[in-house]
C-alpha cells in the first residue's frame, strides 16, 4: 500500500504512531542537512566557535533530557559527568595518544561507569532528595579533579591536545577537494554531525520499548512497576546513557577548547543544562538542540547590544552599575522564570504549535 504525503500524519495504528518521519519528509531533512553543511563556509570563525559550543551543549542537553525529560529523574549533577568525560578524553587522547575513535567512546564509557555507580542512588532516593544528592556529586567531582594533580593538573587545569582525526580525515585541518578548512569549521562538522547522530539515536530510543518504559517510569514509577516495568533497570539505564552523553559533551568541550580546569564544571553548569532543557522543551527529543542554541546565542547577543545600554558598565568594583556578565546572569534567570510561566514546554512546543497551525490550515484556530 502506498501512502500519499497528505496521509503521512494520519495515525491508524501503533506502527504509524512511532514512525520516524511521521510529519517531516526525508526530503525536508535532506535540504536541512545540505544547508547545515553549507553554513560553516559563510560564517566567521567567531560564529563557528559559538556553533561548536552550542553543539556540545546540545549533546549534553539531550543526555540530560533523557534522564529528566523522559525518565523523570531530576539531576543537578550533569556538570560532574561533563568533568569526568573532559578529563578522561584529555587523558586518553593526550597521555595515551589514542585516536578520536577511541578517546571519545572511552570518555563516554567512563561517564557511563560513573552513571552506573550513581544510578542506584535513584532507586533509594526520590524527587527532591535525589536532586540534592546530585548537587553533592558536582562538588565531589570538582574536589577530585582539583586534587588529582597527576591526571587533572590540579586547580590550574591542564592543556588538552587530543587528536581529532578519523583515519586520514583530520577535523582540525580539514581538506576536501583541494580546499582547506579552519579548525573551527572542522569542529562544526564534527560536533554537529554528532548532534545529528545523537538526536537520531534519541528519537529511536524514545520510540522503542526501552523509551516507552522510561516514560512510564516518569509518569508514575509505582504504576509502571505494577505493570511489569523493571524500575531498577530503567532508572539505572537512564543514568548510564545520560551520563555517557554528558561525558561525551565534556570530552568534546575539552578537545575544542584545548584547556580545562575544575572551576569550569561548577553547579552553574548543571543549572545551565537544566535551563537548556526547560527553555528548549522538556521531554521533546529536539528540544535541547533549540535550548542549546538559545542559551549559547543570547549571551552573545547581550554582549553585542550592551554597550548601548546606559546602566551597564565595565567597572566591577562599585555599586549602581551592572557588568555585562551580571546582566547575562540576570537575564538568564529571568528567561527561566518567564519560560516556566508562559511556555512550560519551551521553544519546541512553540514550533510544534506553529507546525500544527499550518498543517490544519485553513481550519486552524
Amino acid at each position, binding site marked *: 500500500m502506498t501512502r500519499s504525503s497528505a496521509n503521512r500524519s494520519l495515525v491508524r495504528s501503533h506502527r504509524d504512531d512511532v514512525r520516524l518521519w511521521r510529519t517531516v519528509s526525508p526530503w525536508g531533512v535532506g535540504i536541512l542537512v545540505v544547508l547545515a553543511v553549507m553554513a560553516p563556509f559563510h560564517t566567521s570563525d567567531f560564529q563557528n566557535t559559538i556553533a561548536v559550543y552550542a553543539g556540545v551543549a546540545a549533546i549534553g542537553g539531550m543526555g540530560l533530557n533523557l534522564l529528566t525529560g523522559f525518565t523523570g529523574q531530576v539531576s543537578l549533577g550533569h556538570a560532574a559527568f561533563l568533568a569526568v568525560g573532559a578529563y578522561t578524553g584529555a587523558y586518553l587522547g593526550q597521555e595515551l595518544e589514542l585516536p578520536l575513535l577511541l578517546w571519545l567512546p572511552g570518555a563516554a564509557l567512563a561517564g557511563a561507569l560513573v552513571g552506573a555507580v550513581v544510578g542506584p542512588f535513584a532507586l*533509594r532516593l526520590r524527587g527532591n532528595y535525589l536532586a540534592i*544528592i546530585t548537587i*553533592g556529586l558536582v562538588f565531589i567531582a570538582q574536589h577530585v579533579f582539583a586534587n588529582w594533580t597527576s591526571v587533572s593538573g590540579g586547580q590550574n587545569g591542564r592543556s588538552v591536545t587530543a587528536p581529532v582525526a578519523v583515519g586520514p580525515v583530520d577535523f582540525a585541518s580539514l581538506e576536501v577537494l583541494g580546499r582547506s578548512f579552519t579548525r573551527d569549521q572542522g569542529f562544526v562538522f564534527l560536533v554537529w554531525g554528532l548532534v545529528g547522530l545523537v538526536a537520531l539515536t534519541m528519537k529511536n530510543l524514545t520510540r522503542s520499548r526501552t523509551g516507552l518504559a522510561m516514560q512510564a517510569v516518569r509518569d508514575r514509577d509505582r504504576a509502571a512497576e*505494577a505493570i511489569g516495568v523493571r524500575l531498577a533497570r530503567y532508572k539505572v539505564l537512564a543514568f548510564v546513557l545520560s551520563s555517557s552523553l554528558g561525558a561525551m559533551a565534556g570530552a568534546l568541550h575539552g578537545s575544542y577548547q584545548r584547556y580545562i580546569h575544575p572551576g569550569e564544571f561548577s553547579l552553574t553548569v548543571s543549572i545551565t543544562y*537544566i535551563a537548556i532543557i526547560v527553555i528548549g522543551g522538556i521531554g521533546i527529543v529536539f528540544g535541547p538542540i533549540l535550548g542549546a542554541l538559545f542559551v549559547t546565542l543570547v549571551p552573545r547577543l547581550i554582549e553585542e547590544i550592551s554597550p548601548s545600554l546606559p546602566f551597564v558598565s565595565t567597572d*566591577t568594583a*562599585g555599586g549602581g552599575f551592572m557588568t555585562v556578565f551580571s546582566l547575562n546572569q540576570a537575564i538568564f*534567570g529571568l528567561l*527561566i522564570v518567564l519560560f516556566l*510561566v508562559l511556555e512550560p514546554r519551551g521553544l519546541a512546543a512553540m514550533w510544534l504549535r506553529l507546525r500544527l497551525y499550518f498543517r490544519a490550515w485553513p481550519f486552524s484556530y
Partner: protein
Amino acid sequence: MTDFLQLCFAGLALGARYALVALGFVVIYKATGVINFAQGAFVALGAYLAFNFRQTWGLPFAVSLVLAVLVGASIGAGTERLLLHRMVGRPLFALIMMTVGILFVLNEVITWIWGQRTLNLGDPWGQDKVTVGDVVLPVKDLWTLGLAAVVLAGFFAFFRWSDLGLAMRATALDQEAAMARGVDVKRVFTLSWAVSAGVAALAGVTLAAGPAALSPGIWLIALAAFPAMILGGLDSPGGAVIGGLLIGVVQTLTAGYQPQHLPWLGESFHVIMPYVVMIAILMVRPYGLYGTKEVVRL
C-alpha cells in the same frame, strides 16, 4: 583537648548559621513542597539590607537587624505573591526551577545595587573575644548561638501554640483538608515565604558579622546548608537544627584535623565534607534522620 573544644565551639557557631538557613528551607518545604533554591539570595539580601540600614543610614545595629529581617520577610512574601502564586498546580520540578531563576536574578540585583566589593557590616561585636579556661570564644559566635536559640524557641512556640502555626502545620499535613476546615492556604504559603526569608536575613547578618565579611559570595552558604536540611529530613524543623549543628561541627573538625591526619584526601576537603556526610547518611536512611517517609499510592 583545648584545640578540640575550640574547634567544637567554632563548629557549633557555624552549625547554628547552617541551622538557620536550613530552617528557612524546611518552612517553605513543609508548607508548599518546594525546595527554595533562592534561599541563598535571601541570606545575602538580609545581610546587605542590614549593611544599608547600619552603614548608609546610620541606624543602631539592633534596629538595623530587626529592619533587615522585616524587609527581607516582606520581599520574600512579595516574591511568593508575584511569581510562585501563579505556579500552583504545576509540576514541582517547574516550581523548583522557578526558584533557581529567582536566585540568579536576585543575586545580580544585589551586586547591581551594592557592587562586588567586600563591605563592613559595622556590627558591635567585631573581633571581641571571651576566654573561658583555655578556650577563646569570639563574641559574635556567642551572639549567633544565642540568637539562633531564641529564634528556634520562638519557632517551636509559634508552631505549637499560635493559630497561624497550627494552620501552617495543617496545610503541611494535607492542603485540601486544611482548606476544608477554613484555613486560608494561600495566606499560609505567603506567610511561609515571609518567615523563611526573615530567618534567612537573620542568618545573613550573623554570617556577615565581623570585619570585612560581607561580599556577594555570601549566598553560597545556602549550598552548604542543603546537606544540613537533607540530613535532618526535608520536613523536620528539629532535624534541620540537629543537621545544621552536626554538619557545622563535622566540617570544622575536618578542617582542623584532616590536613595532618588524612592529607591524601586533598586540600580543603572540609568544603565537600558536608556532602560526603549527607550521601553516607542518606544511603542508610533515605528520608534523612527525622524526615517523614513518603507513602506512595498507585
